[in-house]
């Protein structure tokens, strides 16, 4: 069974179910593949999965919402990760987060209305010496001051990155 989400991409749910059939923890493995494919787990895919696997939707959502990895909303074009680990927090990570929230009218865990940025909080990116740290799509920015954010983010807004 193919499913159509957002008009173009598809995932073969029946094939996935067959691939993981009878294996322990198959629901999580299938959800992983779905998330890797779409960047999130679309509701209509969960509903189909529920039918194919004969697993109640309630159980699927228990798993999705329990693990931080799984997302229920489409990710933004770019993901901004602000570190709130101890060092970054002490060095002003929270101020960075607040500033970004204000700039784009977005809360943590949400995507901006234009779909450009997804804002998330992470705990320690492993480079505390650079605190406060933020990361955009895997690129690290260290010792960030709130008034530098505009410069860091504008290439992404202008579509230069």
């Amino acid at each position, binding site marked *: 069974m193919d499913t159509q989400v957002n008009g173009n991409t598809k995932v073969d749910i029946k094939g996935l179910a067959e691939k993981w059939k009878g294996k322990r923890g198959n629901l999580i493995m299938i959800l992983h593949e779905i998330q890797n494919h779409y960047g999130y787990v679309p*509701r209509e895919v*969960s*509903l189909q999965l529920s039918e194919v696997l004969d697993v*109640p*939707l*309630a*159980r*699927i*959502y*228990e798993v999705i*919402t*329990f693990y931080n990895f799984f997302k*229920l909303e489409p990710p933004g074009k770019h993901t901004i990760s602000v570190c709130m680990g101890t060092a970054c927090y002490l060095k002003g990570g929270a101020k960075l987060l607040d500033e970004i929230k204000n700039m784009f009218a977005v809360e943590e865990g949400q995507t901006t209305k234009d779909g450009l940025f997804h804002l998330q909080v992470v705990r320690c990116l492993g480079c505390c010496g650079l605190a406060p740290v933020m990361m955009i799509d895997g690129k690290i920015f260290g010792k960030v001051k709130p008034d530098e954010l505009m410069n860091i983010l504008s290439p992404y807004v202008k579509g230069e990155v």
Partner: protein
Amino acid sequence: MIQAKINGIDIKVKEGTSILDAAKKVNINIPTLCKHPDLDATAACGICIVKVKGGNKMLRSCCTPLEKGMDIITHDDELQEARRTVIQLILSNHPNDCLQCARNNNCELQRLAADFGIRTVAFPHVAKELPQDSSSKTINLVPDKCILCGRCVQVCQQMQDVWALSFLERGFQTRISPAGDINLSESPCVRCGQCSAHCPTGAIAEFDQTPEVWKALYDPNKYCVVQIAPAVRVAIGEAFGYPEGANLTGKLYAALRRLGFKAVFDTSFAADLTVMEEAAEFVQRFAHGKGVLPLITSCCPAWVDFMEKFYPDMVKHFSSAKSPHEMLGVLSKTYYAQQNAIDPATIYMVSIMPCTAKKYEIQRSEEMYASGYPDINVSLTTRELARMIKQSGIDFMHLPEAQPDHVLGEYTGAGVIFGATGGVMEAALRTAHYMVTGTDADKVDFENVRGLKGVKETEVNIKGNKIKIAIAHGLENVEYVLRRVQKAIAEKTELPYHFIEVMACPGGCVGGGGQPYGATDKLRVARAHGLYKEDDDKELQYSHHNPYIKKVYKEFLEKPLSEKSHKLLHTHYTGRPLYKK
């Protein structure tokens, strides 16, 4: 057997008994907010902690079996202090608006806080501010009041196999939510209300419709009439301090008259009528080969909803007879209105039910308006009625008993046992026997259809015909029965059953989701006993001998399964989607 000590008292219990249950045997109640006798221990709340003498670990007594030679301490300063801390932690994240809560005076958390004399909370208050969900108009979800005990989730997922409720997210963000974060009305919820009956706090309660009923009672242009279901009479006493299972039919009639109802009917009358229709339907299918077997009872609206959502292939097996309260509703606005020259448009029919799903049933389909009006205007639970009686200042305890109104209030023993699991089957078999043989069964009781076993299977012999029956209660028990039927149909082998009764709630309606709180198997048995006792005491124990049933058929309905009966007393079923979103 295990020998051990609890608080210095010697005790012998069966192997595997939890410390919590063992302590009860020596009259020690260890407090808990999550463990319920119906459910498995989940060790969620952390209040039932105990210590083993000499050790310094605190064990959760709900999920720790008593072991040989253990010397258990259930109460000391350290344990009590830990319990006090846990209660305060819960309160620090609880709305604490007890005065305006559906569970005021009846809340397990409130009671515990009172018993422990909690006067201050040592932690800053953090409100959850989660949205309420009244979308189902039967059950109210107030996730702010949830203490995450997990009872409702276990009830919904295991006991009822519905999977409408689940926990979402984790840690401090954990919350109860209908499947996949939607409204309850969009979820597979069948409105059985067992979640509300098991919730220790006000997080899940019935959708309160008493304000509408008060308004109608005070409206001079409305002719308010009422009916009470069998199971209500043996449970309402719990709200007024009566012993378990006390049958208070006469007092209920009196209280309802004092509340201002102009006529008081009894759903048991319509249960007799249901028996006539359903037994006739069974005989038609079994003896005359008209229609498919097995026939499945359809009095329980949560079961009907469950079948329509989970087993739409079984639709044709369902008895088309409406549930008793619907039958009584339609008769009150047709037959009763005609006989008494009352404009049916002014009649306001309230049904008092042990059930939250009845609130849904009254609007289930157009056929619930067969009289040309809503056949039932409002359906209240036993809990709501108890509140109305208290609010009205009626001294229930000392109230002289009263009689119901004639015709629609007259019933036999067969009608009143509808409230217990197996009761519908037993009543229908008594009449089916008569319809097939023309004589009454020698033995009135079909005893092996009674009791709390999840699935009861037996055979009944009517004039050389073996009728194979199954009775299931608690929706988790349905699967076994229906899978057997589906398999036999698919493989074209002999049917395992001819007649199946299902009630969604454990114990049947006596254990209904709208009954007073605190139901356990012991209480369910006591309530059922109250009904069987009334059956024994009744002069008439066969629905077909009810003279008023005969009268209504003669004057109005003609005969069972007549055209008029079909129009007024029967309904259709249809498959429904599990998820509406």
